[in-house]
């Protein structure tokens, strides 16, 4: 067994140990992936295939390894991203694309229970109506589409793929939409406790 630094050096420098080092790293990736990906997104996977794809990425980007973590940890981080990306793609392949429609301008309608009849709680009812107004008026169409797709069980990866954008952009659209709604609720004169209680309410009335 090569140590972590020997593994890195052997793979990077192309020494006589390179093949052995790659085999050792592949075996470690397969072991880690087999354990950590099991059951995720309810999708079957082949740890050998994922490890192989990850290895190609690792070899191609080895110059970017900064040495601030162990080489194996860095490699495993890449392998996990490849593996989960793969599972997400399979998972989303069977999902409805309804939330990405644009003909309804990303309309996102809160349930009647939230808007009208949330028990007899007048404050929560007002909050429900305010939240609907904020969704309609403060969010852009793109933000609504991202939010409703995320609520329809899409990952940011999956949304990025469906919308032809990158994951950073989707994360930012989602984050900005959440901030807009939060600031919108806060700027209507309600106390923080009332807002917190509305946001924590479990909506038991159907």
């Amino acid at each position: 067994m090569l140590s972590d630094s020997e593994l890195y050096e052997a793979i990077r420098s192309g020494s006589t140990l390179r093949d052995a080092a790659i085999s050792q790293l592949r075996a470690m990736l397969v072991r880690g992936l087999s354990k950590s990906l099991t059951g995720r997104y309810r999708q079957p996977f082949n740890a050998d295939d994922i490890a192989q794809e990850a290895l190609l990425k690792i070899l191609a980007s080895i110059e970017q390894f900064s040495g601030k973590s162990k080489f194996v940890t860095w490699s495993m981080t890449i392998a996990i991203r490849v593996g989960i990306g793969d599972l997400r793609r399979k998972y989303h392949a069977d999902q409805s694309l309804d939330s990405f429609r644009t003909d309804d301008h990303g309309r996102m309608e809160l349930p009647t229970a939230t808007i009208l009849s949330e028990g007899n709680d007048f404050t929560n009812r007002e909050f429900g109506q305010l939240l609907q107004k904020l969704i309609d008026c403060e969010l852009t169409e793109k933000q609504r589409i991202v939010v409703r797709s995320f609520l329809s069980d899409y990952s940011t990866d999956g949304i990025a793929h469906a919308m032809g954008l990158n994951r950073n952009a989707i994360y930012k659209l989602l984050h900005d939409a959440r901030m807009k709604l939060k600031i919108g609720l806060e700027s209507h004169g309600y106390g923080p406790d009332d807002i917190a209680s509305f946001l924590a309410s479990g909506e038991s009335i159907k």
Partner: protein
Amino acid sequence: MKLTIEQTTELKSLIRSVTDKDTLECDGCFDLMSEYAEAMRSGKQLGSAMLAVKAHIEQCRCCRYEYEALLVALEELETNSQ
């Protein structure tokens, strides 16, 4: 699209938990994730770069999911190397 009660509860939770403290995006988080995982596993005190990863992971469900999977994999390697 009409949201279900469950989706509305999730939306509220997304609003409740959002902060403006996240300075990273997913790619920046990914670049630092291996270092962050080791720092967390060793209980080391987190510097500002690692605190930025922590803030992003708390805000971003997808990066959090990948980080949790990474911890499971690292745990497995450690168990097997002993």
